[in-house]
């Protein structure tokens, strides 16, 4: 029987990053992926013949530059193409922000002189803030249940840096961690579509509205990408988001990691509180000293481990960890380009994100629908047309359009299930919403893929279709992610580790949980 130093469950981007780091340190590693494609939620598939979709995750946001460097990802095929700007179509007008700061400010002057001026100040402040926050993404959370100084030592540099910040930035940091995106922006801006569109990025993937406290923090993410310097961290990967996963897989293999597909883990084997490896659905057992699971905690602890092996309190804590998927995805294969009524014709305005977020009230009403268990009657849609920057994704002259749609709650009112009828109704609502601003969209559609939260759960394996492997709400961050007392990638089972988005610092195509888990695991090995 083969024996490995470590098994990584799940060939999503975090699992692959984790495996690459372990292999790089000389461990014998195998990655076990259930599907016949790699990438998890960062996956490219040809659903409609000739059209390749970034099925779930559709832009690179925060891929950690140290991972790109350490694993030499560009050498393994990673290329990030620019996604320039965000267009918010409105009834007779539009709001268009681009990466060129000067142009954006000129555009904002059309709306409000005050906002144009504030935008400069705001951008500088946010860039400073992002620079401060970044190290938190690489920090290992403390255990707040223990007062022993060595628990907190890892946080001391963060505390010192916080104390050394100018008051203005400290103030902003606290606001970002506690306020709603809309309230935070209210302090600067008055233009409704501007605030709605900016705050929309604060609620992506969460079951919160833009007026829900705790959503301001995500506003920073856009700025974090920008300060990574030479490497462009915000954009469309060549070949779709699957391109990112494949480059990481290539790097992992180059380091000697083995990657097996269609290898579904049936159980994590535990003996005397210690893992011995895994058993596959085929009945094959694979032995290893360590198992690092990039599956979410519900799958890892409730599905893959024998109920009796875990402490009852821990199981309760895993059960109450909240997923609450809130979004869906509609991928369209198009015969041509959509024609926006507010800005007709083709042009560079279509090359960035097209954000269907015309007003604060629109966003908030979309959320209210979801609170009571139905998908938004007029959803927030973040649409991009990757073929404009990466034409190879579709046959010549054709296009793909990726529509991230929020809100679509996993749990529907009155116990209804996401059946075909609901999926169809959801799809129609999305197309209707698009058609209000781009009436020719219906004629262009030559193929489509609709993913409800249930589809995301079943296809990608994310519980309740939560794209971040668990709600990114304040009580599920940092030392409480995923379970208080178990935020440091370790688990109550000896030798079993967590390395997916359910661990700090959470979801998004950043790879940080996979990397930190690998480094922590390596540290524990060397201290043994």
């Amino acid at each position, binding site marked *: 029987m083969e024996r490995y130093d470590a098994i990584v469950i799940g060939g999503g981007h975090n699992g692959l990053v984790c495996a690459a780091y372990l292999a790089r340190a000389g461990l014998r590693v195998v990655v076990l992926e259930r599907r016949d494609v790699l990438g998890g939620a960062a996956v490219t598939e040809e659903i409609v013949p000739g059209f390749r979709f970034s099925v779930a995750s559709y832009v690179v946001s925060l891929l950690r530059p140290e991972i790109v460097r350490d694993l030499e990802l560009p050498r393994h095929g990673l290329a990030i193409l620019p996604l320039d700007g965000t267009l918010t179509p409105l009834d007779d007008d539009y709001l268009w922000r681009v990466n060129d700061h000067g142009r954006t400010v000129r555009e904002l002057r059309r709306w409000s002189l005050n906002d144009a001026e504030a935008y400069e100040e705001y951008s500088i402040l946010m860039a400073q803030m992002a620079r401060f926050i970044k190290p938190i993404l690489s920090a290992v959370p403390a255990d707040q*249940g223990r007062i022993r100084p060595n628990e907190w030592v890892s946080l001391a540099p963060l505390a010192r840096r916080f*104390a050394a910040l100018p008051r203005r930035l400290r103030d902003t940091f606290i606001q970002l961690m*506690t306020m709603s995106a809309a309230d935070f922006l209210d302090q600067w801006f008055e233009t409704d579509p501007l605030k709605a569109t900016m705050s929309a990025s604060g609620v992506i993937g969460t079951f919160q509205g833009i007026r829900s406290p705790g959503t301001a923090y995500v506003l920073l993410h856009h700025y974090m990408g920008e300060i990574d310097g030479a490497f462009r961290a915000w954009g469309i990967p060549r070949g779709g988001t699957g391109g990112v996963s494949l480059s990481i897989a290539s790097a992992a293999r180059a380091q000697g990691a083995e990657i097996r597909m269609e290898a579904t883990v049936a159980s994590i084997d535990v003996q005397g509180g210690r893992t011995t490896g895994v058993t596959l659905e085929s009945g094959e057992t694979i032995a290893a000293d360590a198992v690092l699971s990039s599956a979410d905690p519900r799958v890892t602890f409730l599905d893959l481990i024998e109920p009796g092996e875990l402490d009852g309190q821990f199981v309760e804590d895993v059960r109450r960890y909240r997923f609450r998927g809130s979004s869906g995805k509609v991928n369209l294969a198009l015969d041509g380009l959509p024609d926006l009524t507010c800005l007709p014709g083709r042009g560079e305005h279509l090359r960035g994100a097209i954000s269907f977020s015309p007003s604060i009230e629109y966003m908030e009403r979309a959320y209210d629908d979801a*609170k009571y268990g139905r998908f938004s009657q007029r959803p927030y849609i973040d649409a991009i047309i990757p073929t404009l920057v990466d034409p190879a994704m579709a046959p010549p002259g054709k296009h793909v359009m990726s529509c991230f749609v929020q809100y679509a709650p996993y749990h529907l009112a009155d116990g209804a299930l996401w059946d075909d009828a609901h999926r169809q109704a959801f799809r129609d609502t999305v197309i209707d919403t698009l058609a209000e601003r781009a009436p020719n969209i219906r004629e262009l559609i030559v193929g489509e893929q609709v993913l409800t939260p249930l589809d995301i759960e079943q296809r990608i394996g994310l519980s309740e279709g939560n794209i971040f492997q668990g709600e990114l709400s304040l009580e599920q961050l940092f030392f409480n992610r995923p379970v208080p*007392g178990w935020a440091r990638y370790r688990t109550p089972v000896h030798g079993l580790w967590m390395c997916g988005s359910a661990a700090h610092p959470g979801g998004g195509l950043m790879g940080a949980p996979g990397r930190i888990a690998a480094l922590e695991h390596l540290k524990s090995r060397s201290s043994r």
Partner: protein
Amino acid sequence: MRYDAIVAGGGHNGLVCAAVLARAGRRVVVLERRERTGGILDGVVSTVGRLRPALVAELDLERHGLELVRPEVRMLALRDDGPPIPFFADPARTAESLASVSAADAEAYPRFDAHVRVIARFLGELAEVTPPRLDAGALGDWQAGLRLVRAYRRLSARSARELTRALPMASADFVGEWFATDAVRGAVAARGSLFTAMGPWSAGTAAVLLADSAGNDGGAAGQTAFARGGPQALAAALEAAARAAGAEVRTGAAVERLLVRGGNVRGVALASGEEIEAPVVACGVDPKTVLTRWLDPEEAGPRLRWRAGNIRTPGATAVVDLTLSAEPEFAGVDDPALLGGRIVVAPGIDHVERAFDCWKYGQPSERPYLEATLADGRLHVLAQWVPHAADPDAVGDLVVAELERHAPGIGETVTDRSVLTPAGIERELGISGGHVYHAEPGLDQFFAWRPVLGLARHRLAVAGLYLCGSGAHPGGGVTGGPGRNAAREILAD
């Protein structure tokens, strides 16, 4: 006449601050704009159970006429689809009454009550300290820090983890983890929304809920204690305590602006033109009023004015006072003693959230969340959520219509009715936005950043200027905490 300190605003916190200062030998004058002291004790709140027991002892309030009455029934949760559920001071008895609703909830209740008490006890400790400075460490900071570390260490590892997890939660989630029945969840969770502009699904409402039980014996059912003679009796006792210690109390004395010279406060100017001098001015009014209206813009500076202007004060509570010609008859209530505590209309999480939704879009809630108390033939009702400028008559009608669902015929017995909308509270009591807590108790205006970061240690922009009202840590609710903590800081300086 020259004073050591002026207390601007004769609400409960101003009176507490004045009494503590006077007892320490300071010559103090309290200046109250209205003809009576008491602030929100005069017609807005009806329960006073959050008052710190230590303060009652320290100011000898019982000798000054305060008598606290604690009904055995804490809360009567009215429902749409069943008889009301009484919550008692004794958790075991509450569990009995829950048994008819849900066996699981009845079993969970005493454990939940204990859970709330453990976390609330820590918040009680937190309420006693002056928030530390978050930049350099001064000596006082270390003392406060040590006290908190000690309190934190007294928690078990599990409780400490649960504390950090609970505070930023939405009350709907916090309560939802324990109870299955919507009516139980709604009634227990709603308290996290009282006086706020946050529905039960808003993050941070669990902290508000827990703070309501901090430093008192509220537990899961919530504090419910009355002052005999009404809340005004507490104001009278506080005023008597202050006077007995030598403080002067002037009513009808509206402060218009602060007098500042060379970066030091030197007194206040009244609307009458009279100037009163003192090296210390402690403000019991809300921080937005102090920093954007009373303080000369040049002294505040543009940056502070901008920040103070952004202090969130979304008042959303209306007060409806109903005089009844007969005892109200609530459906399913056979024992009038059950009406002796808070009568709460919050029959479900979604129900309360929907009431909040209306407000978000500028509409009064069609079915508001109500907290009512009955005394001497008068029903005192707090209604959430009401837009700032709502029509008072329409609000009164809404409240009566909601009560009518639970006590059919009650409308017929209303002989007199007075309504204070948030705009009314702002006008009558001079609180920015009509926000009873002076500043929204959101996570962004909490502890060391209440009302804003850098001003949480009661000291405001210029030397000698202090904040002793609810806009300061530990915040709103009739605790007396801000007044007492501010007085301690003033004496330390």
